C-alpha cells in the first residue's frame, strides 16, 4: 500500500530556545546552518551544548557554518503524532549524518515513502517560522552523486 508522507509545514510551532543555542537559531534567519565546533578536539557536536562535550570547557566552543549536506542514518514514520501534529500523520523524521560527522534529527519534506531510505542523500529545506527564524528540515538531494 502506497503511503503518502505529509510535510507537516502547516503545524504551528512555538519553539523555546536555550540561550547557549541561539547562534544556531540566529543563523537560520539567513538560512545558514552553523554547528558547534570544539577547537581543542577539532570535532563538531550537535545538539548545541553549554560546553564542549569533548573537553568540558565552554571556551573551546566556536560555531562553524557547514553545508548541511548529509546522509540518512535512520528514520521513523510517525503514524501517531504528538498533540500538535495530530492529523498530520503519517510524516517522516530522519536522523541525518552531516558531512562533518554529527547526526541531526529533523522532519523530512518533498519525499515519498518509497524514496526514503537509510543512506539516501539529503540537503536542508528551510521552513520559515513566524519569528523570522527558519526550521531546518531535510529533503532529498537529487543532485548528489
Amino acid at each position, binding site marked *: 500500500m502506497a503511503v503518502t508522507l505529509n510535510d507537516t509545514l502547516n503545524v504551528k510551532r512555538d519553539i523555546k530556545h536555550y540561550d547557549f543555542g541561539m547562534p544556531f537559531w540566529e543563523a537560520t534567519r539567513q538560512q545558514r546552518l552553523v554547528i558547534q565546533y570544539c577547537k581543542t578536539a577539532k570535532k563538531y557536536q550537535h545538539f548545541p551544548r553549554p560546553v564542549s562535550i569533548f573537553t568540558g570547557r565552554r571556551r573551546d566552543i566556536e560555531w562553524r557554518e557547514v553545508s548541511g549536506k548529509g546522509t540518512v542514518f535512520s528514520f521513523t514514520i*510517525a503514524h501517531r503524532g504528538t498533540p500538535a501534529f495530530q492529523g498530520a500523520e503519517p510524516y517522516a523524521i530522519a536522523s541525518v549524518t552531516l558531512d562533518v560527522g554529527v547526526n541531526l534529527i529533523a522532519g523530512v519534506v518533498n519525499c515519498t515513502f518509497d524514496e526514503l531510505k537509510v543512506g539516501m542523500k539529503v540537503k536542508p529545506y528551510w521552513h520559515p517560522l513566524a519569528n523570522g527564524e527558519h526550521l531546518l528540515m531535510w529533503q532529498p538531494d537529487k543532485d548528489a552523486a
Partner: protein
Amino acid sequence: MSLRDNAIVAYAETKVMKKSDRDVWVLAGEILESLLDKTGFDKAEIDGLVMSGLTGTGGASMFWAQSTCDMLGLEVGFCEQVHTGGCSAVGAVARAAAAIDAGLCDVALCLYADTHVREHNGRNDRNYRRDWTEPYGLLGPPGAFGLLQRAYDAKYGVDLRALGKLAVTQRNHALLNENACEELRVPITIEDYLNSRMIADPIRLLDCVMLADGAAGLIVTSRKRAKEKGLHKCVIPIGYAERTNFLGGENFVDVTRSGHEIAGRKALAAAGLDVKDIRSFHPYDDFLIAIVIQFEAFGFCKPGRGMAFVRDTDLSYKGTLPMNTGGGQISAGQAACSSHNLIEGVRQLMGEAGPRQVKDTTNALVTGIGWINYGRNWGSSAALALVPNQ
C-alpha cells in the same frame, strides 16, 4: 560492608491496573502493610525510604519522598528519591544497600508507587527536546525507538519474527501472572505482532509498553539484621552497576551499543558470575528491540547476533534462559515505576512464582533502562545480579 552484606527480605506488589481505582498513597500504604506483615518488622523499625522518581503522579514533586513519609507515618534517617528513569527500581536497591552500609539506616523500604494513568501531574522535563525534536513531532519513546530500530536494521538486520517471538513469550508469561494487567492477559501470536498497527514505523503497537497503574515495594536490610529477625528466605544483591550517558563525550556513536556493556561487565564481575552462568534474565523492556540490544550488550551473544539468539533460545519460564517470566512490562503493563521485572526476579529466587516458577533459582539478572537521549538509545543502563540466601 558491601552490597552483598545486604538482603531483600520481602517483596510486595499490587495487581497492575489499566487505571487505578484508588489513590497512589493508598497503593503505597497497601505495599507498606504487606511488607510489615511479611517481615514482622514494626513500622518504627523502618528507618529508610527510597522511592523511585519515575512516577507521573509524584515525580514532578520536589518533595515526593518526604511527602510520602508524612502520609505513611514513617520517620527515617535516610530519605531518597531516585531519578535514573527506568533504572530507578534496581537503583533504589543499590542505594538502600549503600545507605545501610554507610550506617545511614538499617531497614529500608524501596517503594515504587505510581498512578500515572489515573492522575498524571505533568512533567517538568528540561532537556534537548523542546529545541531539537519537538518541532518535528517526534513522539517520545516510540519515535526514538523507531529511529533506533531502523538503525539496528540497517547495521545488522531486524528479524520481525524474532521480535514477535519475544512478544509472544512475554505474553504467555503474563497469562500465568495473576498480577499482570488483566486487559493484557489475552493470548497473542507472532502474526498478531506482525499485524499490529504502526505507531512510529518500524515500531508497532505490540513493540511498546502500555502505561498502567500499580505499586510494588521491597524491604532491604543487612543480612545480619535479617538473620536476627529470623528472615531466612531472602534474596542477596551480589552485583550492581549503572552507567549514565554512555559515550556522552563522543559526537557520533554506534547506537546499537549501550551502557549495559559497562554496567553488565561490572555487575557480573562483582557478582563473580559469567553471563553464561545467568539462570534467569529480567531485562528492562520498554520496546522489544531493547531486549535484543541487551542480549548483545551483556554478552549473551555477539553484537549483531541478537536476533539469531532469540530464534535459537527458549526464553520461556521452562526454557534454557527464562526471560521476563512475569510477562515483562510489555505484557504486564508499565506500572509501579517500572519495577515489575525486579519484583519478578526476587519472587523467582524465593520460589514463589507458582505456575511460572523457573526450575533453576541459582541466580537472576535484572536490568534497567532510563531516559531517552538524542538520536542514540537510552541515557542510563543498570544491572543487578541476585542470588537466593544460601
